[in-house]
């Protein structure tokens, strides 16, 4: 009673997965909406896709895939009690996540500059199918971007906890669960790349 602290890592991971499952349904609904709209407006989606910068989309994919790798490597490092290495991996993840957001920011800024933003006058002149394409593009990449920001904040705390030994070899469930969240954010982007950037 005095020394014993109850811990259920299995239960923690299961709880995290149940939350992630709701996230999958959230984005899944948007993916289903996308598939119907693409079926209905194939030409407009093709045309809309041409407006997006494929190179930036692919670079961001590589950035996120690599950031996912460094998170999982940070967990291995913590399991091996390699604290400095774990911090380096987590730091790399944070830097890559920030890079993703900066690239995304430039991309959106360019779109805004060309008159592509929700409810813009230019968008209103486009055919309905293309308006839907950009509506979905901003909704889905925007919601994904919010998840990146949340993920980065959580991983920032994890880096601090590793530094202060709150996360260590015998106790790293928080890092594992944060990693799960970050990987899901990565998986969502894996789908967003071909749906929008490679649609042309």
């Amino acid at each position: 009673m005095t020394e014993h602290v109850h811990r259920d890592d299995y239960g923690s991971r299961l709880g995290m997965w149940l939350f992630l499952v709701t996230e999958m349904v959230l984005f899944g609904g948007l993916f289903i909406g996308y598939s119907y709209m693409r079926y209905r407006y194939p030409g407009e989606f093709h045309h809309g896709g041409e407006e997006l910068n494929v190179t930036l989309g692919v670079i961001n994919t590589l950035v996120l895939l690599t950031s996912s790798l460094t998170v999982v490597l940070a967990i291995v490092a913590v399991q091996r009690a390699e604290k400095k290495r774990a911090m380096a991996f987590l730091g790399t993840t944070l830097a890559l996540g920030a890079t993703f957001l900066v690239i995304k920011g430039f991309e959106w800024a360019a779109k805004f500059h060309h008159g592509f933003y929700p409810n813009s006058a230019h968008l209103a002149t486009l055919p309905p199918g293309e308006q839907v394409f950009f509506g979905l593009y901003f909704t889905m990449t925007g919601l994904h971007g919010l998840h990146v920001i949340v993920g980065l904040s959580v991983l920032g705390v994890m880096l601090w906890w590793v530094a202060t030994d709150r996360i260590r070899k015998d106790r790293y469930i928080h890092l594992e669960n944060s990693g799960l969240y970050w990987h899901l954010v990565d998986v969502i982007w894996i789908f967003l790349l071909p749906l929008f950037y490679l649609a042309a």
Partner: protein
Amino acid sequence: MSESTEHAEPNEHASEHIEHPGYGTFIKVWVALLILTGCLVGMSHVSQTYAVWGLLTLTPLKAGLVFYFFMHLRYEGPLFKVVILVTLGTLLIFFALLFSDVAFR
């Protein structure tokens, strides 16, 4: 259920250390993901048909690799897999319902 996990926990934790893979496994998966991304981009440049096939095959494969390895599903028990399969099944049902409606309009 909770009782058994409580008892199993110390052992489970100990075995986790032994079972958990090293850096190499994950780096290999990452390389595979990069190659698949390259294939996906390549296919999208060939033709629209290839692009759609790439989307329908390579993208789920990439997601599967992340789920299975990076998200440690490979090392989890059946309950986790069931939870995820039920979710994907539910989404598939909604997808099928929508398109069955679309098809018969």
